[in-house]
């Protein structure tokens, strides 16, 4: 009954795919379309490179966002001002645990920096 063998070879593809009945040709087309889509997405990504760094001045004056590549330093930032407060530092978390050193630290991902203030005496 080799008829049996060959005949149901297609059915052997079960498991998580269910009893998929599909020809190699259609799969080839799907694979090629998938790859083309993948490269299209990557190309789009390459044309819109860069990480946006935004500044939340916590009630102080606005600071312009910057667009940076991986490994870049931030452009020098004029410290923001706020009535009755003195600017301390920028940090990349809302608790101020990780201060950001504008001269030394480099951008490796999209970033949001928060301003931290001290009340004036």
């Amino acid at each position, binding site marked *: *009954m*080799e*008829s049996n063998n*060959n*005949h*149901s*070879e297609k059915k*052997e593809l079960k498991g998580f795919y269910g009893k998929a009945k599909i020809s190699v040709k259609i799969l080839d087309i799907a694979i090629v379309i998938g790859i083309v889509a993948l490269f299209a997405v990557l190309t789009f990504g390459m044309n819109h490179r860069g990480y946006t760094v935004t500044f939340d001045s916590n009630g102080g004056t606005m600071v312009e966002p910057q667009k940076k590549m991986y490994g870049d330093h931030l452009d020098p930032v004029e410290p923001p001002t706020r009535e009755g407060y003195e600017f301390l530092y920028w940090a990349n978390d809302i608790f101020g645990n990780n201060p950001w050193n504008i001269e030394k630290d480099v951008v490796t991902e999209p970033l949001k920096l928060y301003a931290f203030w001290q009340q004036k005496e």
Partner: protein
Amino acid sequence: MANNESVLLRMEDITKVFPGVKALDGVTVEVRAGTVHALMGENGAGKSTLMKCLFGVYHKDGGHIYLEGKEVDFKNSKDALENGVAMVHQELNQALTRNVMDNMWLGRFPKNGPFTSEKKMYDATMKLFDDLGITVNPKAIMSTMPVSQRQMVEIAKAVSYDSKVIVFDEPTSSLTEVEVEHLFRIINMLRDRGCAIIYISHKMAEIKRISDDITIMRDGKWIATHPAADLEMADIIRLMVGRELTNQFPPKTNKPGETYLKVENLSGMYNKLDNVCFEARRGEVLGLAGLDASGRTEVLESIFGIRTRKSGTITLAGKPCKNRNSGESIKNGFAMLTEERRATGIFGVRSILENTVISSLSRHKKFGPLLGMKTQVEDTQKYIDAMHTKTPSQHTQIRSLSGGNQQKVIIGRWLLTEPEVLLLDEPTRGIDVGAKYEIYQLILDLANQGKTVLMVSSEMPELLGVCDRILVMSGGKLAGEVDARTTTQEEIMTLAAKYA
């Protein structure tokens, strides 16, 4: 018989090459209208490859196909069907949760305007069924019907397309004798209408009965075409295997000893198995005969604990066995070869080695729970050698082997568990003649070693040739017991119909 001598279908010089193998080598077959043409050959002879080339499943590498003198090249089986060439598959592809007429008219529902018409569909189906003498309710759900009736639906579908050529691929492999009779009546009717029938089967007796011409293939080559009347069974076998095969069965040498296995009041929880009692001796081959769905398989599966029992005690050498699941049964010395090799036997994507050792892993524990590789390789090699399994290596995926070789691997798996009782369900199904003989020999060897073998088979000559006694099942009950040396097929059939 054949009153129309014109050639309806001619396959000329068909060649098909797979990487490394020439599956078909210039095969020419002519099928005349109003005849049944049997196609025979061992596994891998190229019968189904030839059919797949006809139906466009494979693209043939050379040759021509002529239907009524015109060259055709079907793109797929639908294309073939619409041109009057139909195939009744051995594995039926049907929408099981839908009813009969939905399946019949699938893809071409009779319509009233834009809506499908139930009534037209029903009438058309009934007319066709009356024509063919089929008594199936067109509104019955497919999954509730036995395989034989589903096959009738498939045949009716082929007829409804006005097919001129109908191919039957192993149509009787899951039918009982009575159902086979009905099938043959229908085939004869189609032949008398002038259809050309191509009939593929391994069963000699059937072929002799039904066919007008027989074409024999071997290793992808055409070997011979003769009128069926001119060929004796031995001739067919000789042509198929290319060597003299004097006997279909090896000589029986086993000597049954004392009573060993006792089964009492076996009843099924979710099947109709009812109060089956029997005994089997050491070194005995005990056959189980019966119609389809008579409970033969259920007896074996209930003993092995993979079907839930309602009642029943199993005693092996005076010791009661609970056999609640397969693991426990294996520990108690039982082994079970299931009917559906593909569905419940092989682990298709795993290697020969893993398929062989899976049931006897505890033998290979080396450091605590860790398994040693060396003994696994040794055991596997032992049974590859012992069974003459043809495989490139132990690490070949089992699905790439032929049916017979897969069966040998699984038998090896069970022998490794060192069983005392072997439960074999259709051990030779889908296996070619040469390999069948080897399996018979193996069964008798095991009996000679004092093992008890219970064997279910739909092929009566096989039971008569190999077994000592035969139990006949009917409608879930044990209908009787016969001595294999003195009984006849007629006696068994009478018993099998007792409660059916």
